[in-house]
């Protein structure tokens, strides 16, 4: 079974530039999460989806960040006009509600963003 796939693995930007991160969850997983992990900190939830619906985006800086999951499978997280404070690793995770492994998150390797 393929795991959660993220791309790109690394991105380096100047302030004001835009970047998109892509996530392919485990096939059949209905719930998808985007986390921001600053250096030496724990993951902090940005947004999560159940199928194609946004369930909670209250922690997403809406003026510059956006996230979509149009068909309930792959997802894209976009940062417009990046700031140095956005420097972090962006983690995608998926899970399947119901069944023995309910509650277990499966993480991708992350996309490491550096904003100069």
């Amino acid at each position, binding site marked *: 079974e393929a795991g959660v796939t993220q791309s790109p693995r690394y991105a380096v930007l100047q302030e004001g530039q835009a970047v998109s991160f892509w996530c392919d969850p485990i096939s059949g997983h209905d719930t998808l999460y985007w986390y921001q992990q600053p250096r030496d900190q724990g993951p902090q939830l940005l947004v999560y989806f159940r199928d194609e619906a946004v369930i909670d985006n209250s922690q997403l800086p809406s003026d510059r960040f956006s996230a979509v999951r149009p068909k309930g499978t792959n997802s894209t997280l976009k940062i417009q006009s990046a700031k140095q404070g956005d420097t972090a690793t962006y983690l995608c995770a998926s*899970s399947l509600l119901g069944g023995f492994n309910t*509650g277990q998150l499966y993480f991708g*390797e992350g996309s490491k963003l550096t904003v100069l």
Partner: protein
Amino acid sequence: AQSVTQPDARVTVSEGASLQLRCKYSYSATPYLFWYVQYPRQGLQMLLKYYSGDPVVQGVNGFEAEFSKSDSSFHLRKASVHWSDSAVYFCAVSRFNTGNYKYVFGAGTRLKVIA
């Protein structure tokens, strides 16, 4: 609001020694509890989880954790660490209320195992 505290940012232990990593949570009800591990340049992987029942749960690679409702804690233990256990360990909580499947993570504890 729910929160998770891992009071030890860094822990160093000798190979073969026992280990305890501490986790305290604040939640309005008994949450579901997890420990995840992050090896260098890898994503997080679940070590173990607690939903209910026996407060001591077994995980992978010889790890176990003990839930204490009175202490609001979920400490991770291992009897004998190996150099390959060097990694960052995260405690996390969730509560699968209707429509709410959010997870809150602690800041992590970086474990270094020395010879």
